[in-house]
């Protein structure tokens, strides 16, 4: 059985992390853009009103003000829905923040299909692609509430811009306080040498579930939680390619240019093995219950199982 320690949305991990950071570091400044309580930064707002500002529905200004705060010596965190945190102000992030290598931390909440009924406009499915192509940018996609809190706190002391992708919907908590977390270092969630399933975010849980199903069929799958998409853990990926000889990636994100692509860049250049990609396949989402959407768009454990069987035939 996959060990589950609770069920809570990752956005609250971001919020909790900020409050803890705020207590010990008066350089932490948080900016919101009218979505303050829904992205769970209202706790920081309440405790540290002098180091909080709401800029209204103006995301380009949000990132510009954050850049200015970084120039002034603060470590600014901004947060709003992922589409508006990454897409709308993309050029501001590129030219003002990344080019200047500013210490701005971007919290992209409400990621993935699991935003649910709000539909495609609000389902951020492209942030990994459009953030990881930026020089100096670090991209984190934690798998649960506990890991999101750790990622948030680690981001504060990781030099340069960081994008943290997390979600609105409750997801199983599958890591513990003492599970190691280091930016750039993948976490081996399950041992196995027949195939390696590499996942990020909400898909780590689905991958563990898939590995259980496979185990019953005699296939031992290694599961890697690759919470840092950039800089990616090349060593863990190359090792898995050599040990397992086949890889399936899983992400709640567009396949094109996303997490799987980042893994493939390492695999083909170092130790080419067959790969399959589980993710959103070049389409927009739609309104619906999160659980139904995940099934409809092929992001369940069984989809990962199918991908494993396909990749094993090519091994």
């Amino acid at each position, binding site marked *: 059985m996959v060990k589950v320690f609770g069920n809570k949305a990752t956005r609250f991990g971001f919020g909790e992390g900020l409050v803890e950071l705020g207590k010990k570091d008066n350089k932490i400044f948080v900016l919101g853009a009218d979505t303050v309580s829904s992205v769970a930064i209202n706790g920081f707002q309440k405790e540290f009103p002098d180091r909080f500002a709401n800029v209204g529905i103006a995301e380009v*200004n949000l990132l510009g003000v954050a850049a200015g705060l970084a*120039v002034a010596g*603060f470590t600014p965190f901004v947060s709003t829905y992922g589409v508006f945190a990454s897409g709308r102000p993309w050029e501001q992030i590129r030219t003002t923040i990344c080019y200047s290598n500013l210490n701005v931390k971007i919290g992209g909440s409400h990621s993935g299909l699991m935003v649910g009924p709000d539909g495609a406009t609000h389902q951020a499915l492209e942030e990994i692609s459009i953030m990881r192509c930026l020089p100096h940018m670090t991209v984190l996609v934690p798998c649960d509430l506990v890991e999101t809190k750790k990622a948030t706190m680690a981001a504060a002391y990781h030099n340069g811009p960081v994008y943290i992708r997390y979600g609105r919907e409750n997801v199983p908590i599958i890591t513990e306080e003492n599970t190691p977390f280091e930016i750039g270092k993948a976490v081996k969630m399950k041992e196995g040498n027949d195939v390696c399933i590499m996942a990020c975010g909400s898909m780590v849980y689905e991958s563990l579930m898939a590995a259980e199903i496979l185990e019953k069929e005699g296939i031992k799958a290694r599961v890697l939680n690759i919470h840092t998409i950039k800089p990616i853990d090349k060593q863990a990926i190359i090792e898995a390619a050599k040990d397992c000889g086949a890889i399936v990636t899983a992400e709640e994100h567009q396949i094109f240019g996303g997490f799987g692509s980042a893994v493939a860049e390492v695999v083909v250049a170092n130790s080419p093995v067959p790969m399959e990609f589980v993710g959103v396949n070049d389409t927009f989402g739609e309104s619906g219950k999160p659980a139904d959407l995940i099934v409809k768009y092929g992001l369940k454990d069984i989809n990962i199982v199918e991908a494993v069987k396909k990749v094993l035939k090519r091994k």
Partner: protein
Amino acid sequence: MEIADLKIISASVRKDVLKMLQKAGSGHPGGSLSAVELLVDLYNNHMNFNKDNCQDKNRDYFVLSKGHVCPVLYAVLAQIGCIPKEELDTLRKIGGRLQGHPAMDKHIPGIEISTGSLGYGLSIGVGIAKGMKALKQDNRVYVLMGDGEQQEGSVWEAVMCAPHFKLDNLCAIVDCNGLQIDGKVEDILNINPIADKYRSFGWNVIEIDGHNLKEVDEAYSKAKQCKGKPTAIIAKTVKGKGVSFMENVADWHGKAPNAEQLEQALKEIDESLK
């Protein structure tokens, strides 16, 4: 510093700008020349910024939102000793610090942040000013924008934000030279009445002739005295100011003078001081 001295410095900065651009073979003379007095007076008479305190936390900040006119900023930074004068010859050359648009990663004193994509500087200024307020420091923050730049929507997000945060430590300067790449600002996309727009958003607005050093100097002084809201200095200027064949000609937005044109331009600037 006296107005007469500033006038001599302005002429020298104009000449440096033109020499740099001629050596570089490309760049933006028009908007550089329109902003000369605005920057010369700011750096010499108002900003708490010099080669010795350029890293201090008490320094005043300047953001060049219209980053393409960096030749005038480099020339002024050279004049106050932050850049070696001979380095001006390296503008736009590979491996150099003086990029075609200001680059923070080249570690030039006075380049606080990379700029060059229009419409971003005022937000950055808002952030720095907000940060200074949070630190309870009284540093001032200056942002220079162009008039064509006012067409960018992001400018107005920041214009709305600064008075809301009561950032009286922020001073925006709009260099209204009336021209942009494709022609007259009023023909391409009219921004006027620009002063009324800033006023209606809650700014303290000062309208001046941006080449009249006395008016420029008084405007910066008045801006410092204004409490509770940011100041916008709307400066009427002439694109290409000081060089007869460049003045009010949109084509000189982004074109470097050749050796012959440079010689004539330098002669005109020298004569203007007589």
